[in-house]
């Protein structure tokens, strides 16, 4: 076979993503082409988070149309697909199983193989493919995950992580306090508001070795925000600015420590929070102080998408890995270091 096409289906949180990717194996390394990358996002009203039940309903209502559109955009039919990849976990149970059900049904109808993919590994492989970073320290930051990862001996090993809530969750929940809209994303709206902020509020800063903790800073700012705003001394923008400066400094610090520890000069930022320009800028300042380089992607690949699942899935598939139908169940807890990375040296 000279070329392979993978269909990737992602729905572990509030984004539903469908992607088609082609690997042309006649060249070394294979030539990778993105045929289509579609996303549909569920936005709850301002002041609320997305609930599993509503999110699953959203995914069920849109997935068939999204797959049809993806095939049309790629200008292929289902016959051209070699393998169907879906997110096995981690994520919210309801949304995950809604998407997996569609993956299974299509595999049976079209007689295709299935590959269950770890969501975090999907982010890492997509980031590596897009940026060309070879062996970076990976900072994976999103609404549900905060991990500092490095590859060693066939596993993506977790060097540090959030001990309680994820950084994206911290930002999203503060956006609810300020009643910021969830469209396009609460974190994005915090980022825009933070640009107008100038005054730094002294917030708790918690780094425990390589690990970080965000629950303290969140409850501090949630509790004190009303009084700080009422005093007239600080604006909403100042609070967003202070929150970003503090939590991102914690992330950059632990990433730098991981780089120093393993002696790496490359950093790759992936995950939804990874599109934050201020985080990228801070990471860049850290890297240039130590002769390093930052790799980051834009929202098409940073935020959850179907292509990343297709990419990680097709890499596993090329090593002969498939997920038998009876093992295509989903799991909410699926650690990055559980995956055997057969496709890397």
């Amino acid at each position: 076979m000279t070329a392979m096409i993978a269909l990737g289906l992602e729905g572990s949180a509030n984004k539903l993503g469908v992607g088609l990717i082609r690997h042309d194996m006649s060249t070394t390394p294979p030539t990778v082409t993105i045929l289509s990358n579609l996303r549909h996002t569920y936005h709850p009203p301002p002041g609320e988070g997305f609930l599993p039940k509503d999110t699953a309903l959203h995914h069920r209502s849109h997935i068939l149309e999204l797959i049809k559109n993806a095939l049309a955009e790629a200008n292929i039919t289902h016959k051209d697909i070699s393998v169907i990849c879906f997110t096995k976990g981690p994520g919210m149970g309801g949304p995950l199983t809604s998407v997996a059900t569609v993956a299974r049904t299509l595999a049976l109808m079209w007689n295709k193989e299935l590959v269950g993919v770890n969501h975090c590994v999907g982010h890492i492989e997509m980031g590596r493919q897009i940026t060309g970073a070879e062996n970076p320290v990976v900072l994976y930051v999103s609404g549900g995950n905060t991990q500092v990862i490095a590859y060693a001996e066939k596993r993506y090993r977790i060097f540090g992580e959030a001990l309680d809530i994820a950084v994206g969750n911290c930002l999203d929940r503060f956006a609810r306090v300020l009643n910021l809209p969830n469209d396009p994303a609460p974190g994005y709206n915090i980022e825009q508001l933070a640009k107008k902020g100038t005054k730094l509020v002294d917030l708790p800063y918690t780094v425990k070795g390589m690990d970080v903790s965000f629950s303290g800073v969140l409850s501090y700012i949630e509790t004190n925000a009303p009084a700080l705003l009422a005093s007239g001394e600080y604006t909403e923008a100042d609070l967003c600015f202070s929150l970003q400066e503090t939590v991102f400094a914690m992330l950059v610090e632990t990433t730098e420590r991981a780089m120093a520890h393993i002696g790496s000069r490359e950093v790759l930022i992936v995950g939804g929070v990874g599109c934050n320009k201020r985080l990228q800028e801070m990471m860049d300042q850290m890297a240039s102080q130590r002769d390093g380089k930052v790799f980051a992607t834009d929202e098409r690949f940073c935020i959850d998408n179907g292509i990343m699942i297709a990419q990680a899935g097709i890499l596993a598939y090329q090593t002969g890995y498939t997920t038998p139908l009876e093992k295509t169940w989903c799991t909410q807890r699926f650690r990055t270091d559980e995956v055997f990375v057969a496709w890397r040296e």
Partner: protein
Amino acid sequence: MIHNAQLIKQGAEAKVYLAPFCQRQAIIKERFAKAYRHPTLDKKLTSRRVIQEARCLNRCQKAFIDTPTVYLVDVDSSLIYMEFIEGCSVRDYLTTDDGHLPEAQAKVAKEIGTALGKMHNIDVVHGDLTTSNLMMRKESGSLVLIDFGLSYVSNLIEDKAVDLYVLERAFTSTHPNTEVMFAQILEAYGQNSKASKLILKKLEDVRMRGRKRSMLG
């Protein structure tokens, strides 16, 4: 800073220089300003950490725990002058031929566990335990705890358990297949730490807490 200082390492937190100081070789640790950090936040963290580091090193020294001796602290310039340790890190040692032998690993593990037990007994929490921050003296082979840059004083079981957890993670992520060695560390720790039962029980909780984080994406 003293002239003739020679930069020997740039860590994540600080630059480390080797320089003559009062007729002996000394290490000068300079915490440099972080361009990415807000100046106010940077200043607060840096001066806090310089003071805490010197304090904790001193506290360990008084309790006869092998750590670099502090010679001089200059808070305004974020400098600490301390003893230069000749030797290699446990991290490097574990990659040598000797370091692969089970007996050698057991011996080092016992020393690590003992030192950590004694350190926690005097309520010093290291804050950044990795195999790079554990050294072995060239002459005596004695285990030295270094880099107290994130250390602080606390009597909380929680903080001590997290300290051990940080080391465990550094072990499993840097040195795959050393689970036996880490178990030996905990065994020696158990024999030397006063509140080891509670701390080791808490460590179980902290491990579970880390695992929970893989839920959403």
